[in-house]
């Protein structure tokens, strides 16, 4: 059971959690990425490539489900304007055994950072700046290469 969603509405963690808790799962791993107020950031605006982004997330979730024995995988990504403390992304995996759920969850968030078309713009001190890609994200994604 794979589900991906890209949407400007706030992510409802309770609803996400209820959706991943499928029959038979012995372990559920989740990761939430939140907007941080680093350097005085007051807002974060996320842009995506409609259609291509959702397809990239489905491809990632399918890759995770094939590599680990998952009973379910969900990726929910918010777009539009957010403020510090808001949840940008919520990844959840369910599996019979905990190692599969934990590893697949880490894989999905690492690869999502480099493989899915999203762009972040920070607002700080009234000005806006586009976030630059980070080498550490490339390194984190690369460790999952077979």
């Amino acid at each position, binding site marked *: 059971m794979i589900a991906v969603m890209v949407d400007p509405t706030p992510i409802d963690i309770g609803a996400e959690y209820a959706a991943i808790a499928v029959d038979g799962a012995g372990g559920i791993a989740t990761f939430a990425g939140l907007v941080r107020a680093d350097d005085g950031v007051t807002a974060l605006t*996320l*842009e995506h*490539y409609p259609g*291509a982004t959702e*397809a990239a997330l489905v491809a990632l979730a399918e890759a995770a489900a094939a590599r680990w024995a998952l009973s379910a995988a969900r990726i929910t*990504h918010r777009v539009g304007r957010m403020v510090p403390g808001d949840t940008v992304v919520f990844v959840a995996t369910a599996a019979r055994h905990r190692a599969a759920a934990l590893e697949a969850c880490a894989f999905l968030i690492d690869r999502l*950072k480099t493989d899915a*078309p999203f*762009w972040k713009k920070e607002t700080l001190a009234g000005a806006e700046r586009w976030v630059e890609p980070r080498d550490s*994200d490339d390194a984190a994604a690369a460790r999952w290469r077979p």
Partner: protein
Amino acid sequence: MTTEILYFAWVREKIGTGAETLDLPAGLATVADLVAWLAGRSPGHAEAFADPTRLRAALDQNFVALDAPLGRPREVAIFPPVTGG
């Protein structure tokens, strides 16, 4: 045949629009050739495409390198490296 060209993030902002529908000339062999041709359309395009090493592209929603053959896509997207998640 027209082609839909999409721009995202600061590429979109510098150009001033997120999409344009264009008749592409013959002779554009690669995505980089298309980018060079687009750069001549306006000062905004020129600024957006000044440093091709900062650009990424997709042909019909498939991510490709800038030196990839252009072919005859219905949709081309040009954008900065991704920074999501």
